[in-house]
């Protein structure tokens, strides 16, 4: 029998199914050969090692930002700054990858740590503004995204740009700085192991340590946490530091794992996608893995569909919009939950 406590799982599944159904409907209207197009969208990502590799490659940055945003959301901080930090830390790691020469193992470690620490420091600014002066973290973090993008682009144009390349890209990274590939035939890199490790660590941090407990209580009710003697301002700064560190690490690992030059001339969007991943994962670190894979899967499916059929990849934005809308719509399926509750109550 269905129980009301499984309601959230059922609801999330229903949301995803509805979004997919809408996608199919659109495909059916647009495509000359809808059945084939849908089949490409659904199954092509699994069709070869290379395609599976694409899904996992894309899931790695989504896991980083999804984890960072989950922690922030858990502390009831609606901070969307992972976007700018992801980008800027990528610039920082690139600079070190280009201009320093270090040993094969140390080089990426130094570049990634530098990116992560810069990310943590930058993220702490909206955190401190929130903790000390109650400045709305959503506003400050969004403004920071623009600021960091501007500075990052300036550094790319005036410090890192390779004039010999026929595009707005940086010099090539030193070979020593690049991350190792894990599986031949794909671009899956060691970043996967790092992010999975981080997710497990975050899980233990959040549910088993006293600092994680403080974070959860501050998020659940800040005045209750303060009344209990917790230093909520410190908790808020701490969660910003951790989230910034993770997002910064994600950006650094992404550039060193996937590219040989820094080439983002626009914000890559992973930070905002992280918010979607966190929402699907209900801000649970372990669930971030599944929700990042899901999102990566439908994106790669859409890409392949665009390449192999007559439906453009932008269709995926519609699916995402429907998912966000329905997940954040609290009333969705409420009536059904109420009916389940009534039934359970009568049986009790």
């Amino acid at each position: 029998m269905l129980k009301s406590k499984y309601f959230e799982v059922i609801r999330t599944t229903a949301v995803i199914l509805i979004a997919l159904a809408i996608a199919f409907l659109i495909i059916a209207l647009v495509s000359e050969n809808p059945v084939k197009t849908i089949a490409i969208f659904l199954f092509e990502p699994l069709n070869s090692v290379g395609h599976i590799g694409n899904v996992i490659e894309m899931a790695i940055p989504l896991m980083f930002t999804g984890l960072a945003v989950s922690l922030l959301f858990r502390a009831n901080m609606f901070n969307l700054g992972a976007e700018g930090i992801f980008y800027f830390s990528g610039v920082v790691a690139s600079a070190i990858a280009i201009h320093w020469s270090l040993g094969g193992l140390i080089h990426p470690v130094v570049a990634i740590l530098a990116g992560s620490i810069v990310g943590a420091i930058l993220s702490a600014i909206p955190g401190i503004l929130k903790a000390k002066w109650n400045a709305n973290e959503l506003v400050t973090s969004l403004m920071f995204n623009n600021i960091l993008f501007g500075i990052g682009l300036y550094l790319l144009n005036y410090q890192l740009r390779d004039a010999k390349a026929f595009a707005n890209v940086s010099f090539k990274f030193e070979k020593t700085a690049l991350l190792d590939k894990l599986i031949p035939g794909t671009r899956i890199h060691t970043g996967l192991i790092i992010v999975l490790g981080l997710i497990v660590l975050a899980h233990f941090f959040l549910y088993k340590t006293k600092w994680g407990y403080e974070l959860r209580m501050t998020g659940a009710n800040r005045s209750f946490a303060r009344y209990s003697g917790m230093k909520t301002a410190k908790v808020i700064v701490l969660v910003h530091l951790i989230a910034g560190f993770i997002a910064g690490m994600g950006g650094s690992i992404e550039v060193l794992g996937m590219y040989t030059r820094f080439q983002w001339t626009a914000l890559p969007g992973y930070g905002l996608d992280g918010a979607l991943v966190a929402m699907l994962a209900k801000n649970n670190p372990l669930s971030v893995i599944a929700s990042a894979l899901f999102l990566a899967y439908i994106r790669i499916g859409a890409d392949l569909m665009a390449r192999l059929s007559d439906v453009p990849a932008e269709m995926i934005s519609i699916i995402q919009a429907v998912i966000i809308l329905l997940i954040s719509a609290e009333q969705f399926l409420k009536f059904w939950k109420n009916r389940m509750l009534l039934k359970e109550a009568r049986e009790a």
Partner: protein
Amino acid sequence: METPLLEMRGITKVYPNGVVANRDVNFSLRAGEIHALAGENGAGKSTLMKMIFGMEEPSEGEIYIRGEKTRLLSPQDAIDRGIGMVHQHFMLVPSFTVAENMVLGMEPRKGLGIHYAEAVRMTEDTARKYNLAVDPKAKVEDLSVGMKQKVEILKALLRGAQILILDEPTAVLTPQETEELFRELQQLKEHGHTIVFISHKLKEVKAICDRITILRGGRSEGVFQTSEVTEQEISRLMVGRDVVLKYDKSKLNMQAPVLTVENLSVNDSQGRALLNNISFSVHSGQIVGIAGVEGNGQRELMDVLTGGLRSGASRGTVRVQDTEIREANILTIRNLGVSYIPEDRMSQGSAGEASISDNLISTHYRSKTLNNGVFLRASKIASMAAELIEAFKIRCSGPKQPIGMLSGGNMQKVVVARECSANPKLLIAEQPTRGVDVGAAQLIHEKLLELRENQGAIVLVSADLNEVLEISDRLLVMYEGEIVADMEDPSSLSEEELGLYMLGIKRQEPQHIRRTMNDVEV
């Protein structure tokens, strides 16, 4: 038999969080009666009334008004059918005048603006008709609680209410104000109005109600003529057992002072004195009650004692044993062995979405028994939570259940369990049983007395006069930021006499009050 004015049949209400507030309840009102609705907290009284007032819809069951089946989808539906409600927490705009509040949502117009003179006239007419004197031009924020309540009642009457629902109307009133309210209700009854009177206080129910419906655990326990049931019978039906209204208190065994307050003053940002030169002390093994009408400085006193006041706002000294805490932060104060049961369990005392177990450890998780420096000790926490749930008879499905799904009384038990389990040297209990059912209140009182037995010092602030009179060893009465009375044997005092001090009509000589301080030197 005549058709009832209002009838509810087979009402079941399940909230989205799974709480079953009402289960197959029948309720009926005869025209022109005062009908009491009594029951423990979480028994479903407020929910039942919210359904009559269109704020909630029943999950199952039917509502009939004058024999006609009705669906009430909004308060406006209810108002249109002559139902009015006076909420426990008043729904008035403080910065508006009485007349403006009266016509809110149905303003008489003059061009584009409000016809203020007409609003005043409407207010005066209604007030005269029902013999409820109010000043239409006074601002609501300047009114006493009793006056605000009068405005709420008039507001409902102006909207044509025939049925008037009063949700715990006497909870915030002094005994004198309560008597006045009862006279007014009798008058309304003579005018042909029907009144639903929600209350925990059995004496009041007996005094003015014709019939009583008793709810327990969401179910109706029956309807009775009030004259035919005794208080004991009602209370047994409410809680399912006989409630002891007196406690076996051991003899006062007072030890060294734990809390010493000397010449404490607090000013607000405009320099107005909120606390004026207060001095008292609380000894280990002693319960000091603080009574007073709300807004006479108790809030500020509690803020100083619990570290909730911004620094620089107060003068004087406040010591816990030998440590000055007037400007200390919350953690420092807690580490001195001070526990605090806050007035507002929802916004301060608990985190609704967190589990019972998470809520139970919020003030203990720092102790080395519950963590090893980094990780929380899950098994220790689990056994502690299980013990407290057992000891405080917290009704729940288990320690992992979110606290927000519990009824008010059970939620309060979690708060009290947490604060008492620290074995505090000093417990500050602010309205520990407000809005809590008789059974839970009794348990909380027993736990407070147990702590006193174990040499804890307790400050008890409460609007429930019975509670402060019965539990305290010494009683202080606050009026306009000062202590106006200091009494040794509170249980011998009557509520009426206490009311005189609370309203500032009587006050003791300053020398008599200073006596508390002199004890310290003994």
